[in-house]
């Protein structure tokens, strides 16, 4: 995977910390030699509440898609519980356009392990499960080796670093289901059930894995924890955007010369990321559209990108969201109807089928979009499509329904002309036949 920007000199002087430029860091000796597990030692000298406080003050927000404040989430966990508590680390990474957590498994697995241990200590957990999508067999092996080495070094297991803190870390391998990245489906999947999302409330902090208090965090989120503990919340909270600080793994794919995963402070200008980091569009073509944060986020017009930055507030103001920071770039020749048909097909296939609006609605949207793609749609189909999307949004058990509706809604709102062109052509075609 490409981690190097196309145009090094002109970019920020950010020195990578999540995916540092250190060879062989995935090996425990190299990790230890580079101050590895120092943050764990530091955290174990603090009180658990002090660790949570540090994370709260750092303003770290979840990197799994919803940008939820991590410290706040951690503080929802009951302090005194007669039940065991659990941590689930979400490495399901199946959102189209997203390929960042895989780089952490490959290049810096011990950072993830160290963060997992600190999180367990802070919230009083005796077991953590790292759920990884089944297709990542190769990366599961890398992480498993790192976990085994950490056990052998007394860093995981009983009486970690000779303190009274003990915890286990177990990898749980998924088996091909996008929905298992949704936190409640993930817990069901670990329990040996079908990966069906659960109705909330109750929320995981009260009733999670096996009915016990549980926190679910993304792989990249957890990997930020040792960085915060090592450098302090003050340092961390000053990186990038104030309300959404820290280093961010930004993925750029689609029509760019230098696709890859680039670590940068939050708040970098979107156009700068596309042109400088990702080397611009092949053939110097214009940008027709950009999906800024994985396929669930609202699509942006190429002519509205000026001034947009990669952070919560800026993308929200622009009518989209950061999501998983997986930017997909589409050049001026892209057939956007084909793009939205393919995205909708994905949600249709991956819907677990529990809720009628999602199960039926994604199928209807897919059918209508196939009509547009094959020039068989009528003008009224545009409003019909919007209507179906509106009826899914907000009416389902989990956010997959919304994730399916948003791309369609935003595509119609921002590229209505594309739909009209297809519908006109099809109208004309039926007339001549």
């Amino acid at each position, binding site marked *: 995977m490409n981690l190097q920007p196309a145009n090094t000199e002109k970019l920020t002087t950010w020195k990578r910390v999540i995916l540092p430029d250190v060879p062989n860091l995935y090996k425990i000796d190299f990790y230890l030699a580079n101050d590895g597990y120092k943050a764990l030692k530091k955290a174990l000298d603090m009180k658990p509440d002090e660790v949570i406080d540090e994370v709260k003050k750092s303003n770290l927000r979840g990197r799994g898609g919803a940008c939820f404040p991590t410290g706040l989430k951690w503080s929802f966990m009951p302090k005194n519980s007669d039940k065991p508590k659990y941590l689930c680390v979400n490495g399901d990474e199946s959102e189209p356009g997203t390929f960042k957590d895989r780089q952490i498994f490959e290049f810096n697995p011990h950072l993830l392990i160290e963060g997992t241990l600190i999180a367990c200590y802070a919230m009083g957990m005796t077991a953590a499960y790292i759920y990884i999508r*089944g297709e990542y*067999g*190769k990366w599961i092996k890398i992480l498993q080796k790192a976990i085994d080495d950490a056990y052998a070094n007394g860093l995981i297991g009983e009486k970690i670093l000779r303190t009274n803190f003990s915890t286990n870390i177990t990898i749980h391998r998924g088996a091909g289901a*996008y929905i298992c990245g949704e936190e409640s489906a993930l817990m069901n999947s670990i329990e*040996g059930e079908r990966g069906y999302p659960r109705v909330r409330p109750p929320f995981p902090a009260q009733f999670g894995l096996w009915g016990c208090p549980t926190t679910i965090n993304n792989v990249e989120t957890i990997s930020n924890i040792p960085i915060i503990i090592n450098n302090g919340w003050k340092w961390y909270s000053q990186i990038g955007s104030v309300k959404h600080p820290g280093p961010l793994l930004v*993925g750029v794919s689609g*029509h760019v010369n230098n*696709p890859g995963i680039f670590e940068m402070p939050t708040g970098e200008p979107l156009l700068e990321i596309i042109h400088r980091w990702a080397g611009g569009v092949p053939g110097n073509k214009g940008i027709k559209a950009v999906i800024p944060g994985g396929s669930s986020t609202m699509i942006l017009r190429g002519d509205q990108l000026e001034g947009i930055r990669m952070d919560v507030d800026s993308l929200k103001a622009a009518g989209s969201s950061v999501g998983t920071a997986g930017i*997909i770039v*589409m050049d001026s020749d892209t057939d956007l109807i084909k793009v939205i048909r393919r995205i909708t097909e994905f949600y249709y296939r991956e819907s677990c089928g529990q809720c009628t609006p999602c199960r039926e609605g994604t199928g209807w949207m897919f059918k209508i979009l196939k009509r547009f793609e094959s020039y068989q749609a009528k003008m009224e189909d545009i409003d019909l499509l919007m209507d179906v999307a509106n009826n899914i949004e907000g009416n389902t058990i989990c956010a997959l329904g919304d994730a399916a509706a948003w791309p369609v809604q935003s595509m119609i709102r921002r590229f209505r002309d594309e739909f009209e062109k297809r519908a006109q052509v099809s109208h004309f075609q039926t007339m001549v036949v």
Partner: protein
Amino acid sequence: MLSESNLNKVEELRKRYPTTQALLLPVLWMIQEQEGCISEESMKYTGALLNIPYGHILGVVTFYSMLQKKAVGKHHIEVCTNVSCMLRGSGKILEHIEKRLGIKIGEISQDQKWTLSETECLGSCGTAPMLVIGDEYYENLTLEKVDKLIDSLQ
């Protein structure tokens, strides 16, 4: 039916989970890795091993797309056709493979050697287009690379 070493692994895993049902996915993975697919017989065996009703196991096996109910061709080629790969030419790659192997998406070749499917995003969008065979990722594909790959597996 699980090998000795896998049975040992199961015993180790029992210590990691408060219920035996949680061992279901790990055990199904072991079976699939050993036998290539998960037969009815294996599901019954798993039920006995973990004390889970057969119906529950069937429900789980049919839910997850990577769990194979029947044997697939020797080389199962799965081409990602999701957005980022599509934008970078997965359609041409797929077409080329279909021509070379003489099979379409979802088919097994007559000599049982090849199975071809399309797949959803596999977390390689930055190295698109891509395909997987088993656990192995083949990224930044070109038609020449695909030809070489197929030749090497012939």
